[in-house]
């Protein structure tokens, strides 16, 4: 399968704690993207990391990519109740306009 696989499937933490979710994949990629989805609605793009990058930051988000291990992690620091959502990694296998390949996601619950 070319899709990414997120781990864990579900995660429950207290507000203020950090949340870490992982994505593993089996094929080579051009880039990897993380998306958030609230309550079965549309997806919101969070961050994109290219295959030649190792780490990127955006606000409270930190993404790492290890192409040798074919894995990525998304860290959300100082989580808030509003971070409660499903998080998906999406693989772009080739450059250009190739479609995104999504995993099944991690359901994050942040308890106030």
């Amino acid at each position, binding site marked *: 399968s070319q*899709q990414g696989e997120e781990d864990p499937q579900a995660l429950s933490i207290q507000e203020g704690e950090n949340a870490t979710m992982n994505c593993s994949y089996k094929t080579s990629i051009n*880039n990897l*993207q993380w*998306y958030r989805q609230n309550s*079965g*609605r*549309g*997806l*919101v*793009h969070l961050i*994109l990391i290219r295959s030649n990058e190792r780490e990127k930051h955006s606000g409270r988000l930190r993404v790492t990519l290890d192409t040798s291990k074919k894995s990525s992690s998304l860290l959300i620091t100082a989580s808030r109740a509003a971070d409660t959502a499903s998080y*998906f990694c*999406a693989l*772009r296998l080739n450059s*250009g*306009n*190739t*479609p*995104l*390949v*999504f*995993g*099944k*996601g991690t359901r994050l619950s942040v308890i106030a």
Partner: protein
Amino acid sequence: DAGVTQSPTHLIKTRGQQVTLRCSPKSGHDTVSWYQQALGQGPQFIFQYYEEEERQRGNFPDRFSGHQFPNYSSELNVNALLLGDSALYLCASSSPRAGGLETQYFGPGTRLLVL
């Protein structure tokens, strides 16, 4: 600046019927992709339209077809509906000129229930 819009928001159909879903891309975007998301799953790519032609297609049967209009809006048509077609249908837009094709902007989706 309007984002990606989709209509209708919800739809109930019976097996064997046909359905048409609509999508208007984000302003300045000319490429529209459609995804199907079953409950508890990630989105799966159906097809992509650019310059009014289907450019790429995922592993979906011919019952799924689409169209793109000169104003870049798009329709997804599903014929002979099956119970398994019940899902959230997401439209995403992008553009090689408006910041590249790498980031896709998603609409809120149309939730289709087939009874």
